[in-house]
């Protein structure tokens, strides 16, 4: 299905058959003189070799050229005198022109002789001169010996400088092509052979396309419903495919098409050339060649433009299936039991088509359809193709409006296995050596970590080598290094890891602390705590106390930590590749439930931290979720509730957190938080935020809100979703109250007094008290 792919590979949209044949895009170098182009050492070497090879051939050609020129020289003498005034033109430019002319002549001459097949193809395929660089070098040599001729040629070139702009543009382009050709010399043979084959296919392809176009038109013409939906699916599919291919090939460079066309057009040109020749026999062959070249280039440009236009028109033919059609598809599927699964390829094509249209909506859209239609269709197709539920897809599309496909594809691929060296027991180099000896293929994880290693493949189970058992390394995702790096624990500090199972981050913290100070590893799950114990002992860590509390109550047991790490339990939307069930079993309730717990945990974590700590006072919050609700929103909440500020996480890569997302507007410092995505960093989806506590005071107005938040939600969704809206409503209410200082205002005052009384009753963290129903609490209020 092509769903698995190498995440390191650059994703190219639409691998059509045409694009396969295309060479990687060449970037047009800035317009500079050829004389300034710097050749690499290898290139130079190669050029020299080729030069030696061809010298023999070249000499023959040169002779021919010389003879011709000598004959014509006499005739031209007069003209030359007139044209000498142009000679002040740029030397290099004229030189380059000179090259081109020369080459064309060479080509002509070579055509007469038996050519090396390779060269022939080059000439045919590239609309521009053959290994110019080679020839240039050769020319350079020749120029030394034949200074006469050079001057002559230069003068002729200057004549052609009437259209320098077109010339130079094309030239640079051609040059860059040429460079590739030269550097890939060994490969070029193979490539060209395949190219040839492709071009054969190309021909068929074209004809197919025409057919399919016809079909499309025919389909449009259908008025009978039955006809429409009884038509074989395959046909329409192929039609769509073709359209897409066309569009894609069009959207990329037209270089290949030009190259293909050139084979045919060159023949026509020759005919034309003969005509021209008869017209002005007086001009030099070199001149003629140059003129011919310019004309050809113009023609190619025109063709390319036309092609582009036709491509655009092709994309316009992509028709969004109407709702009825989609339903019919479903009916069809029901009718045909052997075809139960929806046609994946068809859906895939449609996804691409829609993405194509959305890429340039103004130009490519079908008239009468708005963006919403396309997006809805895309949403539906993505859900079926990648088997996500609608809610999650909705969220993801909001998060990644442009890179949704990349993200989803990256979720289909496993992240690389990474291990972390236990610096308490060994060094990374020693460990790598030991593992290599066991037949493990590995590499350092990257510049950002000095302890990480990526395991590519292994002959032994990497989680059961004697080194692993001896605690020399820990199997750990690359992303879980990040929160600890952000935390940056120092020696002799008091550190708390609030949700620590299975102990990957805990052991890293302990290693950074070099077994000094004290580290508290807490986890709420009785089962998972055992894993922490095992890992801690295996890694030889002695400064850790493992305990089993609900993190939300931890502040009541111990506080005054220098640093607190909270790797909160989350919905796991960043690690879908690890646990694909997340795709289907998460809905809004789950996300909100997670967010709720996270808020409570984060407040507790902040309370555990000591702002007066000499070295620390930092809290790091991380999740393996990409949802804004579980990340920025939680941080934003903490910023309002506690005296904390966001500080840079100390990670020099990753995307910045959102400062505004949808309807939410977060604190501007939110951009100092970091997000990591599977498709951009090849890590699990991750969020890291570092907070600095600047006072142990708990802001006063928080009690009321805590009460709201801490109430264990029977129906968590309305509470959370209402939140921002309610606030806005409240603001409106307040405004009203302030405007009309009537009864309402008094009433609200009374209310506020009541809440003040309540405040004294309720202390944060005593959650049991909040369990009473809101209604009963109201009753109490009335009594008081």
């Amino acid at each position, binding site marked *: 299905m092509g769903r698995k792919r190498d995440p390191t590979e650059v994703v190219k949209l639409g691998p059509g058959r045409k694009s396969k044949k295309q060479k990687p895009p060449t970037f047009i170098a800035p317009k500079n003189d050829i004389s300034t182009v710097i050749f690499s050492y290898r290139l130079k070497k190669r050029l020299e070799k080729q030069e030696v090879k061809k010298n023999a051939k070249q000499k023959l050609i040169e002779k021919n050229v010389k003879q011709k020129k000598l004959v014509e020289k006499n005739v031209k003498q007069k003209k030359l005198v007139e044209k000498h005034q142009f000679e002040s033109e740029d030397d290099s430019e004229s030189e380059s022109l000179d090259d081109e002319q020369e080459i064309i002549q060479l080509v002509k001459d070579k055509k007469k002789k038996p050519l090396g097949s390779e060269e022939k193809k080059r000439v045919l395929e590239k609309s521009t001169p053959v290994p110019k660089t080679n020839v240039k070098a050769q020319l350079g040599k020749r120029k030394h010996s034949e200074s006469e001729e050079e001057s002559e040629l230069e003068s002729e070139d200057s004549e052609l400088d009437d259209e320098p702009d077109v010339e130079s543009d094309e030239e640079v382009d051609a040059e860059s092509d040429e460079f590739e050709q030269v550097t890939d010399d060994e490969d070029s043979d193979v490539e060209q052979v395949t190219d040839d084959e492709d071009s054969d296919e190309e021909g068929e392809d074209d004809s197919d396309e025409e057919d399919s176009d016809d079909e499309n038109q025919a389909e449009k013409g259908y008025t009978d419903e039955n006809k429409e939906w009884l038509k074989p699916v395959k046909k329409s599919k192929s039609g769509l495919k073709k359209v897409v291919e066309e569009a894609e090939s069009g959207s990329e460079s037209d270089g290949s098409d030009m190259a293909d066309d050139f084979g045919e057009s060159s023949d026509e040109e020759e005919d034309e050339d003969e005509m021209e020749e008869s017209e002005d026999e007086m001009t030099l062959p070199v001149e003629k060649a140059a003129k011919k070249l310019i004309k050809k280039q113009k023609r190619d440009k025109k063709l390319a433009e036309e092609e582009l236009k036709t491509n655009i028109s092709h994309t316009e033919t992509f028709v969004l299936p109407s709702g009825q059609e989609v339903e019919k598809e479903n009916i069809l599927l029901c009718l045909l039991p052997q075809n139960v699964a929806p046609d994946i390829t068809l859906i895939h094509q449609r996804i691409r088509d829609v993405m194509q249209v959305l890429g340039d909506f103004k130009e490519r859209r079908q008239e009468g359809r708005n963006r919403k239609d396309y997006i809805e269709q895309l949403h539906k197709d993505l859900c079926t193709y990648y088997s996500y539920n609608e809610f999650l897809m909705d969220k993801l599309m909001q998060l990644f409006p442009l890179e949704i496909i990349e993200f989803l594809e990256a979720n289909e691929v496993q992240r690389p296995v990474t291990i972390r060296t236990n610096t308490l027991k060994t060094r990374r180099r020693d460990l790598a050596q030991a593992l290599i000896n066991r037949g493990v293929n590995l590499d350092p994880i990257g510049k950002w970590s000095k302890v990480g290693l990526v395991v590519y493949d292994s002959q032994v189970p990497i989680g059961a080598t004697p080194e692993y058992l001896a605690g020399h390394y820990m199997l750990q995702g690359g992303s879980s290094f990040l929160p600890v790096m952000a935390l940056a624990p120092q020696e002799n500090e008091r550190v708390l890891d609030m949700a620590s199972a299975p102990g990957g981050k805990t052991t890293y913290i302990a290693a950074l602390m070099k077994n000094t100070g004290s580290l508290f590893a807490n986890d709420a799950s009785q089962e998972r705590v055992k894993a922490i114990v095992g890992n801690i002992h295996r890694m030889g860590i002695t400064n850790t*106390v493992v305990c089993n509390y609900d993190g939300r109550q931890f502040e009541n047991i111990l506080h005054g930590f220098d640093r607190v790490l909270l790797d909160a339990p989350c919905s796991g939307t960043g690690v879908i590749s690890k646990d694909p069930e997340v795709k289907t079993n998460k809905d809004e309730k789950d996300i909100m439930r997670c967010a709720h717990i996270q808020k409570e945990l984060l407040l507790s974590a902040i309370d555990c931290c000591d702002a007066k700590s000499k070295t620390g006072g930092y809290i790091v919050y991380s999740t393996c979720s990409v949802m804004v609700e579980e990340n920025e929103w939680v941080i934003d909440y903490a910023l309002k509730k506690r005296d904390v500020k966001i500080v840079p996480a100390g990670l020099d890569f990753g995307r910045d957190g959102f400062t505004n997302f949808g309807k939410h507007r977060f604190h501007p410092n939110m951009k100092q938080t970091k997000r990591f995505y599977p498709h951009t960093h090849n890590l699990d989806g991750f969020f890291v935020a570092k907070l600095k506590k600047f006072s142990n005071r708990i802001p006063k107005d928080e009690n009321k809100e805590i009460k709201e938040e801490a109430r264990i939600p029977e129906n968590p969704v309305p509470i959370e979703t209402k939140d921002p809206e309610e606030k806005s409503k409240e603001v409106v209410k307040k405004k009203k109250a302030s405007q009309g200082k009537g009864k309402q205002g008094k009433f609200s005052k009374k209310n506020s007094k009541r809440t003040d009384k309540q405040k004294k009753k309720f202390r944060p963290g005593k959650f049991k008290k909040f369990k009473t129903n809101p209604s009963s609490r109201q009753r109490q209020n009335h009594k008081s």
Partner: protein
Amino acid sequence: MRPLTDDETKTFFEKLSKYIGENIKLLLDRPDGAYCFRLHKDRVFYVREDLMKKAGHIARKNLISLGTSFGKFTKTGLFRLHITALDFLAPYAKYKIWVKPNAEQQFLYGHHVMKSGLGRITENTTQYQGLVVYSMNDLPLGFGVAAKSTAECRHTDPMTVIAFHQADIGEYIRSEDTIL
């Protein structure tokens, strides 16, 4: 969590001295801080004193582990060393045995050490002497008891057991749940 009683201390130190002899002293008098043994839920933990005091805040029910676990007292009052103690046994061990690479894996799966897998053994090891098992590149793999003295080892056939298996680092995977 409480200090060990005299009886407990006696049985515990007796057991420990089988492996590290009088080096127990070194465990208690350390230059880098005061360390102590504490009993918690029948388990003996070796922990730095200041850390122990901090852990005192945590309820008995919720405290899972502190410092390093050395082993546990059985219901019959004997002491059993766990693999987690290896970090402190290995550096002070008096008697050692090295196993060949092909026997390494055998030992890590919980088998005894055969004569065929014997690489090296400390001189004048007596029978039933506690010893620490190393791989040939000096990686501590576990500990056990000598089934034969060094002299006897020389003359036995390859399939006889040289050392009885007691604990190995493979237990971190095999019995993660019961390790503590």
